[in-house]
C-alpha cells in the first residue's frame, strides 16, 4: 500500500469510505444514521468547494479564533538538550486554547449550513467541548456536550467554560466514565436525533465523513506552519514534526501539508499515552465508533480499558488515517508515560515561557528524548496544541506545583 501524492490524505478512501484497501475507516453505523450521514457528506463536499464557505471559514479562523498561531524557536530548551533545534508551533495560543477550536468552529459552520439547530459533540479533555460550546453560542446553535464523569471531574475548568457558554454538559457515567463512553453516548444521541441534530465528533475518528471534516479543519495548522517555515528558513528544512495522538486530530492537522514530503525530509512522529497506545503498540484492527482502526481490544474483541492521566489521550482507538500513515510507514508512532509527560512539563515550563497541557506534554517528552541525539541542522517542531490551565490541579497533585 502506498499513499497517493497530490491527493489530500482524507480523500484517499474508496467509495465505501475505506482507506488502505478496506483495512481502515468505513461506515459502520446503524441504518438509521445512514441517510443523515450521506446528507452530511454531500453537504461537506459541496461546502469545501464553495468559495463562499471557505471565505466564511477563513473569516472565522481569523477574527473569531485570532488568526495565525505563533511559531518560534525554544532557545533555552535547544541549548539545554544540546542537539537539534527545537521549535514550537504554539497552537495553544489560539482563541480556544487548542487545535479543537478549528474543528469545532467548522462543525458549527456546517451545522448552520445544514439548517439544523442542534449540535452534539463528545469531549475528553474538554477542549473540543469548550470550543464547540463557544462556537455554538457564536452561531446561535443549541449545544449538547457529552463528557465522562471522570473527565468532568478532572477537567473541571473546561466544564465551567462550557456551561457558561450555555451548552448542556451531559455527564456520561457508564463504563470507564471517559472519552470512549462519551463518544458512544454522543453517537447514541445522534442515532436518536439525527433528523434535527448535527453530530460533531471530537477527533478524526468515527464514520468516514466525520474524520474527514475533522482533519480538514485542523489542517489549517500545517498550512500556517508551512508558511512560517518558509518565512524562517526560506525552504522546508529537514524536519521532525512531533505531535501527541489521542484520536489524532491534532497530528493530522499538523502534518497534513507535509505528507507528500519524503519521510527522510519531513519525519512525522506521533506520541501516544503509554496505556492508550494502539498505534505504538501494534494493536489489532477493530471496529470502534463506526470505523475500522488500530484499537486496543481484549481477546474477545471487546474494547479495552485504557489509562492516561491525560483525559484527552485516554481513548482506546485511533484515527483510521493514522492507521493508513502507520501502515504506509509515512509516520512513526511512539509513546510516553504519565511520568515522562509530567517530567517534560517540568522541564519545558522551567526553561521556557510555555505551559503545555498534559496532552502536548507527551509530545514534548518525545522531543526531549530524541533532540540530544540529533544535529544542529535538524529541526524539531512540536505542536504545542493545548494550554496547561485545565490541568493545573493534576499538575499540582503530581508534581507539587504549577508555575506562574
Amino acid at each position, binding site marked *: 500500500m502506498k499513499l497517493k501524492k497530490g491527493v489530500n490524505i482524507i480523500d484517499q478512501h474508496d467509495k*465505501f469510505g475505506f482507506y488502505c484497501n478496506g483495512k481502515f475507516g*468505513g*461506515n*459502520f*453505523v*446503524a*441504518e*438509521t*444514521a*445512514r*441517510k*443523515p450521514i450521506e446528507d452530511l457528506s454531500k453537504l461537506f463536499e459541496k461546502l469545501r468547494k464553495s468559495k463562499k464557505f471557505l471565505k466564511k471559514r477563513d473569516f472565522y479562523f481569523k477574527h473569531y479564533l485570532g488568526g495565525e498561531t505563533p511559531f518560534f524557536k525554544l532557545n533555552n530548551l535547544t541549548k539545554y538538550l544540546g542537539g537539534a533545534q527545537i521549535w514550537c508551533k504554539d497552537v495553544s495560543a489560539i482563541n480556544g486554547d487548542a487545535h479543537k477550536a478549528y474543528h469545532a468552529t467548522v462543525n458549527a459552520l456546517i451545522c448552520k449550513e445544514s439548517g439544523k439547530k442542534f449540535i452534539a459533540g463528545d469531549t475528553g479533555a474538554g477542549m473540543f467541548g469548550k470550543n464547540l460550546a463557544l462556537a455554538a453560542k457564536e452561531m446561535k446553535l443549541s449545544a449538547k456536550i457529552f463528557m465522562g464523569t471522570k473527565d468532568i471531574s478532572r477537567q473541571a475548568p473546561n466544564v465551567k467554560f462550557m456551561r457558561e457558554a450555555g451548552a448542556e454538559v451531559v455527564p456520561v457515567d*457508564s*463504563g470507564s466514565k471517559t472519552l*470512549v463512553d462519551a463518544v*458512544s453516548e454522543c*453517537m*447514541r444521541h445522534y*442515532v*436518536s*436525533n*439525527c*433528523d434535527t441534530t448535527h453530530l460533531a465528533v471530537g477527533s478524526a475518528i468515527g464514520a468516514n465523513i466525520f474524520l474527514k471534516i475533522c482533519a480538514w479543519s485542523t489542517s489549517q495548522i500545517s498550512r500556517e506552519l508551512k508558511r512560517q517555515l518558509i518565512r524562517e528558513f526560506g525552504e522546508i528544512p529537514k524536519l521532525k514534526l512531533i505531535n501527541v495522538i489521542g484520536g489524532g486530530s491534532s497530528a493530522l492537522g499538523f502534518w497534513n501539508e507535509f505528507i507528500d514530503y519524503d519521510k527522510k525530509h519531513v519525519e512525522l512522529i506521533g506520541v501516544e499515552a503509554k496505556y492508550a497506545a494502539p498505534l505504538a503498540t501494534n494493536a*489489532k484492527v*477493530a*471496529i*470502534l*465508533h*463506526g470505523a*475500522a482502526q488500530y484499537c486496543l*481490544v481484549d481477546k*474477545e*474483541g*471487546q*474494547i479495552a480499558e485504557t489509562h492516561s492521566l491525560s483525559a484527552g489521550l485516554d481513548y482506546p482507538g485511533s484515527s483510521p488515517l493514522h492507521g493508513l500513515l502507520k501502515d504506509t510507514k509515512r509516520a512513526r508512532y511512539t509513546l510516553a508515560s504519565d511520568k515522562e509527560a509530567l517530567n517534560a512539563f517540568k522541564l519545558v515550563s522551567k526553561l521556557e515561557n510555555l505551559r503545555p497541557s498534559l496532552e502536548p506534554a507527551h509530545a514534548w517528552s518525545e522531543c526531549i528524548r530524541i533532540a540530544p541525539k540529533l544535529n544542529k541542522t535538524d529541526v524539531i517542531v512540536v505542536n504545542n496544541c493545548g494550554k496547561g490551565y485545565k490541568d493545573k490541579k493534576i499538575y499540582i497533585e503530581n508534581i507539587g506545583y504549577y508555575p506562574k
Partner: protein
Amino acid sequence: MKNSIDNIFKEAKNQNRPALISYTVCGDNNKENSLNILNSISENIDIAEWGIAHNCPTADGKEIQNSSYRALTNGIKLKNIFQMVKKYKKNKFSKPIILMGYYQMIFNYGEVKFIKKCKEVGVDGLIVVDLSYPDNKNFARLCKKNSICFVQLIAPTTSKQRMKEILKVSDSMVYMISMISTTGSALKVTTRKIMENYKIVKKISPYKNVVIGFGITEKTIGKLKSADGLVVGSAICKEITRSLNNRQNPVTNVSRLVKNLKKKTI
C-alpha cells in the same frame, strides 16, 4: 424445514397473528439464567433473537446496554454463546434463533469462521446492527451460501430508493425500525405512523416478512399486531433489570411478561 424462519411466519399468519420475536442478550444476567429465560419463553415466542454482548454498543439504549453489561460482567464469550445456542436447539420446544450483534464481534472472530460456527450450532439468522447496506453485501452473500437468514434493516430515515435496493437483495425476513432512536426508548411516534411506514415496505415487497422493532411494550404491542412480526427487546431487558433490583427471579418474571405480550398479539 418445519421449524424454519419462513415456516414460522406462515404458521403465525395461519393463526392470524404476528410472529412474536423476543430479544434478550445471551448471558444476561448470567449464562445459566439467560438459557433458562429463553427456554421458559419459548412456548410463547415464534423466533428468538439473542444479542451478542459488546461493550461499545453505540446503537443501544440504556436497557440493552444494561443487559450487555451484565452478560459481559458475568463472563460471556462468543464461545459460550455458540455452546448455548447448541444447547438451546436441543430443547424440542426451541424456536428459530437469530444472533444479533455489532460487526466488531464478528470481525474480531473472523467472518468466515463465525458463519461456519453459526451454521454448525444451528443459528438460523443474523442481524448485524452496524453493518448496513451496501457494506454488508459480502457478508450477506456468505450468509446466503450457508443458508443463514441475513436480516437487513430498514429505518424511518431510509429513502424509498434505498429501501428498494435493500429489499431487492434482502433475505425473506426484514427488520423495520419503528422510529429514529436507539433501542429501548419509549415509542416517540404513533403506532399509526409506524404502520404507514410498514405498508410502504410491504407494498414494495409483499412477500417478505417484515418485522417491526424498537420501543414496543405491553402497552403498544396490541396496536401493531397486523404486522408480520413484532420484536420486543428492551421491555424484556428492563424486566430483567427490574427483577434483579428487587431480588426477584428474572426467569419467572420474564416468562410472565412474554406470556402477556403474546396474549396481546392474538
